């Protein structure tokens, strides 16, 4: 009795074969002939020895070399070693093999893909057929015992798909880097874990396109209640492996049409697009309340506690510093547009702010510090005013202690306001 997965594998193959080979113009006896031929081809006695012979044309690999270069596999010394890495999970904070469980990939002659599919069929016990053959289970023994071929020959034929090479072969088409180790180097041939590449794509696609997420996104748009939240990701880039022939790269690549997603690792840039050079006052024109609201709310909570320890002071400093960080980033953005956007005839900017923000005054800023002292007072006033604006009626009256503290944190950033 065949495992159901194997049985349905064969019935599917037969069906496709017949569809391809039976033409409408055929006579009934010709059709019958074809059907007989088909049964014969896909009988275990015939198909297994044929498949076992072809199994070696495909190698299973966690890191197919073809992701480094499509023609990296074959070279004058033979085929590049097929890496099948088995690595334990370590909670070390790195995205690397072993720390995510993913599918094993395969590469090789596309004409032998049917054999790969056959060997990766999942049996009723949840293990794939290949594992059964490796472990010589009863199921495997029963399957591979035929009249036409020797059991051991069939088994070793199929296992060629996962056989490690006896020698290590890399390629000039694979990036090879030197890495310093003590006083010497190691040379590393860099490969890609394609299972991980496509696992990433599948998780990103789920974030973007799954029905639950679509439904929740819609609820948010209409401002309706949803028990569960959802997540969004921006800045993805698509990369193609293998062009119009993704099958030449790997099995997984072919299944995914050769398209994978990349996450953005870009730094922030000094924002020029949404920034305006202030006409009359930097503080009222260049900030939006939501940009600093959370920090002031956190500060408010800290002001209200009646005890005082280092943890508290540290949290207070951190929130204040974050507001100053925002101010400094804004300052640079405004300076970046100062040449293009400043119009002398419509500007009523104070001379202090002008010295501070316009590129023309860069030298002036270095020469004297008087403007800076005035600016620091302005920033201090702005902090108090913004706190009161954010907290509205809940705001407590800030005392000298708080004001002094504001001044201290601003003073620490003095050199960076120049």
């Amino acid at each position, binding site marked *: 009795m065949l495992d159901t997965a194997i049985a349905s594998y064969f019935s599917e193959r037969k069906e496709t074969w017949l569809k391809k080979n039976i033409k409408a113009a055929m006579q009934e006896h010709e059709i019958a002939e074809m059907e007989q031929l088909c049964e014969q081809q896909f009988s275990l006695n015939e198909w297994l020895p044929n498949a076992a012979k072809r199994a070696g044309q495909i190698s299973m690999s966690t*890191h197919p070399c073809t*992701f*480094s*270069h499509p023609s990296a596999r074959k070279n004058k*010394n033979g085929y590049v*070693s097929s*890496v099948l*890495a088995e690595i334990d*999970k370590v*909670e*070390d*904070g*790195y*995205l690397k093999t072993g*720390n995510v*469980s993913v599918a094993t990939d395969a590469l090789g002659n596309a004409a032998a893909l049917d054999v790969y599919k056959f060997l990766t069929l999942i049996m009723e016990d949840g293990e794939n057929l290949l594992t059964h053959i490796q472990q010589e289970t009863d199921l495997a023994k029963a399957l591979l015992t035929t009249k036409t071929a020797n059991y051991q020959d069939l088994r070793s034929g199929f296992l060629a798909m996962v056989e490690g090479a006896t020698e*290590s*072969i*890399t390629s000039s088409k694979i990036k090879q*880097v030197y*890495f*310093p180790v003590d006083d*010497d180097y*190691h*040379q*590393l*041939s*860099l490969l*890609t*874990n394609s299972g991980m590449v496509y696992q*990433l794509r599948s*998780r990103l696609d789920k*974030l*973007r396109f799954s029905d639950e997420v679509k439904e*929740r996104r819609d609820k*948010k748009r209409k*401002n309706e*209640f949803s028990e569960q939240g959802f997540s*969004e*990701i921006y800045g*993805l*880039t*698509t*990369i193609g492996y293998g*062009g119009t022939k993704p099958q030449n790269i790997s099995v997984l690549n072919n299944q995914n049409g050769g398209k994978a997603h*990349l*996450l*953005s*690792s*870009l*730094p*922030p*840039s000094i924002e020029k697009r949404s920034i305006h050079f202030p006409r009359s006052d930097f503080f009222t024109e260049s900030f939006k309340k939501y940009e600093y609201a959370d920090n002031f709310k956190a500060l408010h909570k800290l002001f209200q506690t009646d005890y005082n*320890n*280092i943890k508290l002071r540290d*949290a207070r400093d951190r929130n204040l510093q*974050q507001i100053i*960080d925002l101010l400094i980033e804004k300052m*640079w953005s405004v300076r970046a547009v100062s040449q293009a956007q400043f119009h002398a005839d419509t500007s009523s900017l104070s001379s202090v702010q002008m010295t501070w923000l316009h590129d023309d005054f860069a030298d002036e800023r270095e020469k004297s510090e008087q403007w800076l002292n005035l600016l620091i007072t302005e920033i201090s006033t702005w902090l108090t005013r913004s706190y009161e604006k954010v907290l509205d009626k809940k705001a407590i009256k800030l005392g000298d202690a708080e004001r002094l503290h504001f001044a201290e944190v601003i003073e620490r950033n003095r050199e*960076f306001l120049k």
Partner: protein
Amino acid sequence: MNNIKRLLLLPHIKVHNANALSSPFTIGFPAMTAWLGAVHALQRKLNAQGHSDIKFNSVAVISHQCDLQTHKGVDDFVHSIIGTGNPLDKTGARSAFIEEARCHLDVSLVLEYTGIAKDDEQVLQEQITHLLSSNMKMAGGDILTFKASQFFKVENGNPADLSALTQKLMPGYALIERRDLMTEAMSAGQDAMDALLDNLVIHHHCEKVADEMNEEKVIWTSKRKNQGWLVPIATGFHGLTELGEAKNQRDPNTPHRFAESVVTLGEFKMPHSIKSIDEILWRYQTDQTNNLYLCAQTQKIILTEQDIEDSYYA
């Protein structure tokens, strides 16, 4: 323990067509290994020119600008790479290729050094200028322009020393390691990929709140899991096979193995708010038991709320 660091600033190096594919999972800023590699190459060149004592022990990377060469159509949600298919193969057809992403950069590098005497500083400055303007590559790209290098001394705990240097890095963003966030999420049960993604996505979350009139209101809020400009970064390699010899290896005399990129979280941070130069310095580090070849931060200063509390009651 010497608490004075000697540092060399290479300001505003403009790099054209640097490799923006830092790992098979990320695009944008070049990998940390590329920057340490460039500095290591510079050290070797200086060593070969007779300055055999010079060592660049750690490196900080500050991005002033990074323009990624990707394309986004009007209605596209994702970007695609603007690739080139050169060179053509011998029949004149477009060769099979993997898309290569490029970026144009303006970066400053801060190198921690030993082995340069005070008297040699000027000579070295000239030699470095010469090396950078000859045929040196950086992160796979060409160096277009750069400003003259400068020497600094930073005493640990001296804010004036530190800000004299960091002022020169403004405006810009220093890359720091935030592997702590990944490790934390992984020990809470997430696998490495979820730990990474969870820190990159924007979470939208919904609540019902009663307003002043006691009527129920639906409020959606959106935020990231952690503050800061967090990005995935490639910081090193992970050996997959045993060390040994391989056919076709570039150099038959160096031990070879197959390896992959490792990726973790990083943060881009304006250097004005750092408290110690160690917060932005990176150095080579190998972990032979786990087959790791890493660029890692020299010292982790970021304290958790718990650390702060513990240090107070200690």
